[in-house]
């Protein structure tokens, strides 16, 4: 070997040096470290438990038992020709419920955020209440109101209009879509309202100057500008409807309408013993659908600049003066809130005051009792559950939103090559049915070196893992609207990444962050499908408690606890909304 050759061999190759220098540049930027830390946390939270589920879908033995590799679970799940009509039913159900929820949410959000309709603040506060109620209770309330045999509303029609039979039948596809859409509306409302709060009204004013009327502005300017938020809410609600089992179990089953989740329940989750391998194979299918929707969502919102309406130019809140139409707007909002909040809550109140639920008669008033509220007041188990749930809701939602904000910044704002992976990772645990995911979590953490199994911390981890997409969607739809020039100005003025994030972006993202926080707090206060598997004696939150009281037929106690949770949630929401308004920026 010549001296030159030896020298060449001693020198690192050019490509390696170039790679090192690129890595050096990458690591010298604080945002890269944020990417590595946030990506690492999300990858761990997401992949560690789902690894067990993927593994389970490819084996023929229960988790923890040595098995053989097989594709039989996938063959069984997807080769059944009966599955496809059910998929079509699920698609109609998901699309209908999600679409209707968006219509309701848009109407309610526009009226309460952008107009001068009377009582709009009250409407805004109460619109989120249904998110607090366990979906199962909302479905039951509507069965009590609209069942064809003795539903209360049908009964009123028969009595006052002399009809032979009530006009409504909840046990039908329209009934199923209607009830699910009411359950889904608050989530869509929160996301859409956050986007409307962050919008610069100057574009609307320009349209008006050019001669467009209020309706034209709304359809041609306002709604297209908040398209990311509408798509975000639509995506979340579609997948949520397609994977929901509670409403189909209560309404579709008596109507003999089968959807895909009833099949999953019959063959996997509700079979005896539970076939977790098959459930995991179904979960992988739902995951694929969810990821397609994530891709579509990213595709539709890829031109992020076109949605940037929050810029460095100052803008002040502008409310549309509806003139005499403002009373009509309030009437529409009131009607929606009667459907969303008043009727289910009235049924809940009635149930909480009756010794057992029955169709009210004149004798009912003599039977009213406060026993169920006394139970809530006097039972230590209930008090402990409230403390556990409040801890999980406040700490969990805050931690989740911090992670979601950072993840959202990385996916929307940076050009890091792997940023899209983070969004995909976030959606993986969400796509599995709650019960299947809980088993994956149980397996992941039962033998974990840090002893968190059988403590409240495993529930906290489960909540963050499963519900991060809600936080991410809520905050992403807002961050897309914030123009880059504000950050650039901050950087030019010498602020580092963390200072810019904390002092410029966070205040701008506040409506989205608070909306996400509210969604998560209300979900965490009542979550049960993942909690059931993971809570331990002593760490029982409200979700399992409500579920067991429900299973034991104690509807009165469930309703009383549900009302107390609603009250606590309204207080939390009111506080959170004070901090989410653009006026307070």
């Amino acid at each position, binding site marked *: 070997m010549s001296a030159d050759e030896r020298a060449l061999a001693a020198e690192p190759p050019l490509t390696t040096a170039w790679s090192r220098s690129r890595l050096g540049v990458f690591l010298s930027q604080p945002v890269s470290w944020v990417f590595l830390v946030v990506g690492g946390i999300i990858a761990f939270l997401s992949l560690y438990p789902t690894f067990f589920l993927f593994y389970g879908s490819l084996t023929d033995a229960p988790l923890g038992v040595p098995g053989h590799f097989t594709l039989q679970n996938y063959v069984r799940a997807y080769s059944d020709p009966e599955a496809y009509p059910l998929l079509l039913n699920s698609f109609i159900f998901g699309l209908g419920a999600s679409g209707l929820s968006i219509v309701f949410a848009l109407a309610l959000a526009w009226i309460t955020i952008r107009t001068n309709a009377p009582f709009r603040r009250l409407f805004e506060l109460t619109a989120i209440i249904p998110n607090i109620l366990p979906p199962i209770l909302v479905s039951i309330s509507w069965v009590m109101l609209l069942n064809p045999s003795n539903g209360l509303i049908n009964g009123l029609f028969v009595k006052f209009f002399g009809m032979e039979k009530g006009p409504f039948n909840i046990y039908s596809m329209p009934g199923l879509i209607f009830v699910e859409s009411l359950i889904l509306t608050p989530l869509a409302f929160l996301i859409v309202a956050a986007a409307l709060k962050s919008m610069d009204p100057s574009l609307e004013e320009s349209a008006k100057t050019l001669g467009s009327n209020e309706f034209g502005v709304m359809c041609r300017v306002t709604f297209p500008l908040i398209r990311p938020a509408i798509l975000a809410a639509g995506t979340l609600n579609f997948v949520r409807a397609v994977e929901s089992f509670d409403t189909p179990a209560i309404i579709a089953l008596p109507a003999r309408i089968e959807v895909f989740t009833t099949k999953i329940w019959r063959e996997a989750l509700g079979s005896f013993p539970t076939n977790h391998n098959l459930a995991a194979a179904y979960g992988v299918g739902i995951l694929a659908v969810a990821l397609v929707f994530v891709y579509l969502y990213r595709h539709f919102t890829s031109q992020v600049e076109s949605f940037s309406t929050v810029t460095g130019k100052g803008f002040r809140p502008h409310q549309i003066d509806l003139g005499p139409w403002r009373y009509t707007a309030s009437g529409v909002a009131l009607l929606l809130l009667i459907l969303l909040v008043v009727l289910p809550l009235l049924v809940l109140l009635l149930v909480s005051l009756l010794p*057992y639920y029955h169709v009210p008669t004149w004798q009912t008033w003599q039977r009213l009792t406060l026993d169920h509220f006394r139970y809530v007041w006097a039972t230590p188990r209930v008090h402990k559950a409230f403390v556990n749930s409040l801890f999980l809701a406040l700490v969990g939602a805050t931690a989740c939103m911090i992670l979601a904000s950072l993840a959202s910044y990385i996916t929307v704002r940076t050009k890091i090559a792997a940023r899209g992976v983070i969004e995909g990772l976030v959606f993986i645990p969400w796509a599995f049915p709650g019960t299947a995911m809980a088993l994956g979590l149980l397996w992941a953490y039962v*033998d974990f070196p840090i002893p968190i199994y*059988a403590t409240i911390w495993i529930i906290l981890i489960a909540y963050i893992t499963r519900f991060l997409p809600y936080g991410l969607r809520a905050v992403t739809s807002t961050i897309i609207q914030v123009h880059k020039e504000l950050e650039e100005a901050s950087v030019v003025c010498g602020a580092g990444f963390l200072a810019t994030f904390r002092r410029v972006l966070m205040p701008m993202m506040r409506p989205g962050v608070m909306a996400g926080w509210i969604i998560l707090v209300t979900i965490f206060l009542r979550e049960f499908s993942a909690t059931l598997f993971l809570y331990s004696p002593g760490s029982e939150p409200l979700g399992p408690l409500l579920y067991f*009281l429900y299973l034991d037929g104690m509807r009165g106690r469930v309703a009383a606890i549900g009302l107390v949770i609603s009250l606590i949630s309204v207080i939390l929401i009111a506080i959170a909304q004070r901090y989410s308004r653009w006026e307070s920026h």
Partner: protein
Amino acid sequence: MFKRSSLALVVVAAVFLSAAPLYSQSANLIAAGKKEGKVVVYGSLESDTADSAFAGFKKKTGIDVEYWRASATKVMDRGLSEYRAGKPLFDVILTNDNPMQIMVKEGLFAKYDSPAAKEFTKESIDPNLGPRYRNVVIGVVYNKDVIKPADAPKSLEDLVKPQYRGKLVMPDPTQHTTTTQWVASLDKLMGKEKAERFIRDLAAQKPILVESLLPASERVVTGETPIAITYVKYVLTYAQKGAPLDYVRLGKFMGDGHYLGLDNKAPHGNAAKAFIDYFLGAENMTALAKLGEFVNRKGIYPPLPDADKIQFVEMYDLDSKKFAEKKKEYQQIFLH
């Protein structure tokens, strides 16, 4: 006089001597259990029933009970998962027959012969699990305000008569495993041929199908559907709140048995044994019966009219293959 008093003394001494080992076993277990501090129970026992049993045990022994509640299938899944991972946190499992037998096969339980077991009927003793402490009985329940007792069905076969069409609610046998078992076991009451015909006729009545037994009974309570195939004990639990329910006296009733098992790696083994002894004892069984449970301890019945006349027939235990087959079969019969 002397003879009578010495006879009484002998009887007292005999009772004392025979009870002494029992007493000392129980006292020793309680003392050792107290040192362990608590007993951890996983089970599917309903809230009020469980609260009553745990409060009684705490009062008698001073030992706390920590309870993790879930459906029978989830209890089995969690119990097996912890056991297979070598970290069982539970001491006792309380649930129904089918999952208990699977856990027995997996070697989850230690054999424990509780002294209280001898007070149970012979036919209720399982060689591996000991006494089947309660039967959950399924029957036909109706709303007396909507259907007069004279017009109510008198037998299972009556349910398929034209006058009851559209008035019946039952859990979906293609979804709800206990109902799958119940329908599959009907031949135990009627014979194979008659049962097959009855199942088809029942489906032809187009009953309202719901997700489980409780929603079925609730629809009867509200009067939405006046007759249900559901647990008979709901007649008592709802009657105590003022609901107008009654049940059809079928004579033979099918249902499921419930057992409790001791974890063979129980972290609190002595407290667990003391708990099992108390749970199967007269005090707890009487309390459970008052809440509507059909317990198998001799001579104890729930305060439900004619409860002592109920002849219990245990349903078939189905394995996963049989469950899948039956659900598929009932899908064709009930849903098409």
